[in-house]
């Protein structure tokens, strides 16, 4: 459903989609949560996943780094390619997939350790020297827009940070893995409007370096940060495309109703 226009915007080397789903259906036990979903997420840029509660947005996101696979009853059919390789067969070692596809959850969860330990939590490689570690912590925290607030207390417990700061710490922690794709499930849902704007700016900045897929309920936010929009309703894709198309007359009635009135009768 993606129109060709925005695939041409991106440069040649990134022409292949970062994520591509074909006839994807997801189930929890017998219940079909997503049915016959097909869409591409172009490399780079921010793709926003919108839709009413229970539409299956989180399920879709959690499929992409196989966190759903940890749930006993979860299963899916169809083709999913991540970074040009099939989701299951292409990544026999799931940890390799997860290092390339970072994920930030809706509610921030920091480990009861120091701030810098939290940033480095996923970096289990012993080869990093002390200075490399320090630089990595600094770059990630700067990228996450948290450095100025915590640079003086890197060794202090991360649990003392405010919720908005914890969420940015979670983003920094994901960035430390240098992922190619970053998945965010309502990253600003539990933070105040000011911190939310800080995170939005940060995502816009990051989107020049990596592919960002983000679930949000906030239409204004979608308008501000999205390059592409995927509108999901009742486990099916209503429409997907570039933001400018979605917010213009060209979108279908259902989408326009949701986007303008933030109300959906589907």
């Amino acid at each position, binding site marked *: 459903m993606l129109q060709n226009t925005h695939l041409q915007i991106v440069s040649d080397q990134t022409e292949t989609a970062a994520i591509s789903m074909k006839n994807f259906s997801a189930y929890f036990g017998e219940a079909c949560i997503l049915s016959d979903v097909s869409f591409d997420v172009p490399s780079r840029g921010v793709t926003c996943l919108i839709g009413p509660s229970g539409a299956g947005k989180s399920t879709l996101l959690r499929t992409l*780094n196989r*966190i759903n696979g*940890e749930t*006993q009853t979860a299963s899916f059919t169809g083709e999913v390619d991540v970074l040009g390789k099939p989701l299951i067969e292409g990544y026999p070692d799931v*940890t*390799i*997939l*997860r*290092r390339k596809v*970072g*994920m930030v*959850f809706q*509610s921030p*969860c920091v*480990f*009861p350790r120091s701030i810098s330990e939290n940033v480095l*939590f*996923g970096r*289990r490689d012993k080869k990093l020297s002390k200075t490399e570690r320090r630089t990595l912590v600094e770059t990630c925290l700067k990228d996450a827009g948290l450095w100025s607030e915590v640079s003086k207390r890197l060794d202090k*417990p991360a*649990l*003392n940070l405010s919720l908005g700061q914890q969420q940015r710490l*979670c983003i920094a*922690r*994901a960035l430390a*893995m240098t992922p190619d794709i970053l998945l965010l499930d309502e990253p600003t849902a539990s933070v105040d409007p000011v911190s939310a704007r800080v995170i939005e700016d940060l995502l816009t900045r990051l989107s020049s370096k990596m592919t960002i897929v983000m679930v949000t309920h906030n239409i204004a936010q979608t308008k501000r940060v999205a390059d592409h929009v995927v509108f999901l309703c009742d486990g099916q894709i209503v429409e997907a495309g570039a933001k400018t198309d979605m917010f213009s007359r060209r979108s279908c009635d259902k989408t326009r109703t949701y986007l303008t009135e933030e109300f959906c009768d589907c």
Partner: protein
Amino acid sequence: MSRSVKNHIFSAVTKLALCLCAAVLGFLLLSIMWQGGRAISLDFILSPARDFGTSGGIVFQILGSLLLVVTAALIVLPIAVGTAIYRECYMQLAQNKARLDTVLYALNAIPSISYGIFGLIFFVNILGTGLSWFVGSLILAMMMLPTLTLASHAAMQALPKSYRENAQALGLSQGEIIRHVILPQSSGGIVTGLMISLARAIGETAPIMFIATAFSGVSLPQSLLEPVASLPTHILALAQQSTDPQALQNAWGASLVLVSFVAAFSALAFYIRQKFSHLGQR
């Protein structure tokens, strides 16, 4: 009867129950301290028993008891924590989890004398180990196993699911998650469980009296297969000579020392729980 009267009666009854409970405990502790205090001196603690315990001290009983339970702890810790990890991280079927729980609760309910008889028949008679402190530790470890496994597992289960999910999302392998998330976060609960089971084990008489301890004439064991002396069996032996006031007094003294150990382990459990919960919240 009006509601407030009922309330008053109910709160009075519960208060009475609490007082009764505290009174029993207080009476017991006070009498042990009162009677035992007269027997205890530095000399009593530091010198070996003589004349079947009626004179002399209890130094080898103290050391023997500690040796028994510390060895038991070393044996049981990896098994219990391993079982708890397996139950929490690898066991898939809810059915199997329920089965394991049933087994653990059943083990917990086995009377301690049965463990003693099992040790006597299996180790001493069939394997021919003779009286040996190592077999005693093994049996004590078996007794501690369900308590410690359940405590460890409870500590792991209490961890928020999001910890594990976040660690998975960062690309940590199952082993790394166990090492860096589950074990450190639940270690407070594990150590607390260990202290509680130690406090129970050090006071156990029945499981070790036939298989690990000799009543007199032993010092420290030179090998795994030698018997030790222990506090509870020593008290038992002294109590059987209750016509001799000197033996009784020494029994009270040994009881006081034993109760102090139990109290120390319990206090340590309490302290560790405080310390770790504080660490978690910083």
